[in-house]
């Protein structure tokens, strides 16, 4: 009867922690979306907005046009990617913190549009979006994205990203078309974010403008920093740890909101001060 029991335990576990596991999957996808942009040395705070664009696109398609779910997912990724490409060419000329501010401003404009447009449902959000997303779909998408990242890293594109991150001027001097590769990184990131946003919208029945504001954008950055941005599974580790943190703290008897938030900030501070390559550097000896 042991297999039965195990099965029972899994069912129980999933019943209690199912939504947490799903959120970990979605947040991991979102964290990877920013990782792609960071791997080319570009700090974007617009990825939460791209997730929003994807969520709204897919939600509108399935709600109003009865488009099949899988088609809506592709459409969401393409929509976010297309907007990122149009946005990327002018915006990516900006460096460092100015790029961050510009993408932040873009995110705010998207959020304000979502509040004011009719088709996005205004401030109350778009609902009821059919619940089509299941755990296996999220984790299939995550596995495929992770595989894609691993392949990308060893490809010509991945090396170009890395060289731009290390020294953009030198990369340009080596004949790398930096504008094109930066836009490519930005676009791939936006497509992954759009996909994650679409899956999230079909998981929660609803998408609201408040979900992808400044705090969400910063949260994605925190996932990446805490996990580490040198390898693709760093952001996943960061997203998993920090998404599960409230539950972990509950295990220690901590339920107060401010304490949870404070621990979140404290972990981030400790990582940036003492582990600049993130928590993954604790496990790997590969200094890259």
């Amino acid at each position: 009867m042991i297999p039965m029991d195990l099965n029972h335990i899994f069912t129980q576990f999933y019943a209690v922690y199912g939504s947490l596991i799903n959120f970990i999957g979605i947040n991991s996808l979102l964290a990877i979306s920013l990782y792609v942009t960071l791997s080319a040395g570009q700090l974007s705070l617009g990825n939460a907005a791209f997730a929003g664009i994807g969520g709204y696109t897919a939600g509108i398609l399935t709600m109003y046009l009865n488009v099949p779910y899988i088609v809506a997912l592709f459409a969401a990724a393409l929509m976010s990617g297309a907007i990122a490409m149009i946005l990327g060419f002018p915006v990516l000329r900006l460096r460092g913190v100015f790029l961050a501010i510009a993408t932040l401003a873009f995110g705010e404009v998207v959020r304000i549009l979502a509040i004011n447009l009719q088709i996005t449902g205004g401030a109350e959000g778009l609902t009821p979006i059919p619940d089509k997303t299941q755990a296996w779909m999220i984790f299939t998408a995550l596995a495929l994205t992770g595989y894609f990242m691993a392949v990308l890293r060893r490809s010509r594109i991945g090396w170009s990203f890395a060289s731009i991150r290390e020294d953009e001027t030198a990369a340009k001097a080596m004949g790398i078309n930096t504008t094109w590769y930066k836009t490519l990184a930005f676009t791939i990131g936006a497509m992954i974010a759009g996909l994650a946003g679409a899956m999230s919208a079909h998981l929660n029945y609803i998408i609201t403008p408040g979900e992808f504001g400044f705090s969400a954008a910063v949260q994605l950055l925190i996932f990446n920093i805490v996990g580490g941005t040198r390898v693709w599974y760093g952001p996943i580790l960061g997203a998993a740890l920090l998404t599960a943190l409230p539950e972990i703290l509950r295990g220690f008897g901590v339920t107060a909101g401010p304490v949870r938030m404070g621990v979140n900030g404290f972990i981030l501070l400790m990582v940036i001060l003492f582990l600049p390559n993130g928590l993954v550097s604790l496990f790997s000896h590969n200094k890259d």
Partner: protein
Amino acid sequence: MNLFAQQLINGIFIGSVYGLFAIGYTLVFGVLDILNLAHAAVFTLGGLVALWLVQSAEMSIWVAFPLATLFSGILGLIINAVAFVPLRHRPDTYFSGLISSIALAIVFESAAIGIFGARTVRFPISTIAVHIWQIAGVTITSLQIEIVMIAACLMAGLTRFLRRSRSGKAIRAVAENERAARLLGVHVDGIIAFTFFISSALGGAAGILFGLYFGALSPDMGRSIELKGLAVIVLGGMGSIPGAIIGGIAFGLSEVLTVAISGTSNLRDAVAFTVLFAILLLRPSGLFGRRQIRET
């Protein structure tokens, strides 16, 4: 027409608070080329501490104001020591400084919620005597005048300090070229800490004025002004103090005028952020900036 004039005046009042907040931002950026994202948390804590002094310690606002401003300045010293000094010699110091200041902002904000609660709190009505004047159909309160006067005095004082005093000149020297300043005998680390002190004191003062003006304070009030402050300093030119003042007032005006013209508050921030976006693309050095910030 009166309504329009009224909106213009309101815009200038709120804009002067934005300007005061943005000066602190831009001062640190001018000296270190680093954005201190914990600035908004200092803004919040400054306001909340002033409220606590008025309410629980039963001080007059005229005593509480300088004390809370001093407290905010000390927070600035903590921010510098914890989030920036340990990272100063790392190759990616701009990026990691941004992150560590975000981390400290989260810690500060959670401390604010833990100590003062998550509710919106108000200054007691008796905190400050308010007279209301009607001049040519336009309403002005003594509180508004006081806010603008305090903001103007602080801005003028800072400008004079940077121009004339020895420490002010040292700050400008470090901003211009850290290495050269060090060679000339400027105590660079002390000057940087001092810059953080002034910057955060101004940020805290802006928080107190904001709380007095709107009557309400909440632990998350720093979030919206954080973005507005960024918009203001980009508009004015990063590192430029007159730019921050004029940018702040322009931003305040754009807010109230958008509401007045569109008749809804939903679009309030849209114009400002669209302008911010356009400026970054078309003239990224801002209106008064001198820095080269696009790739060369």
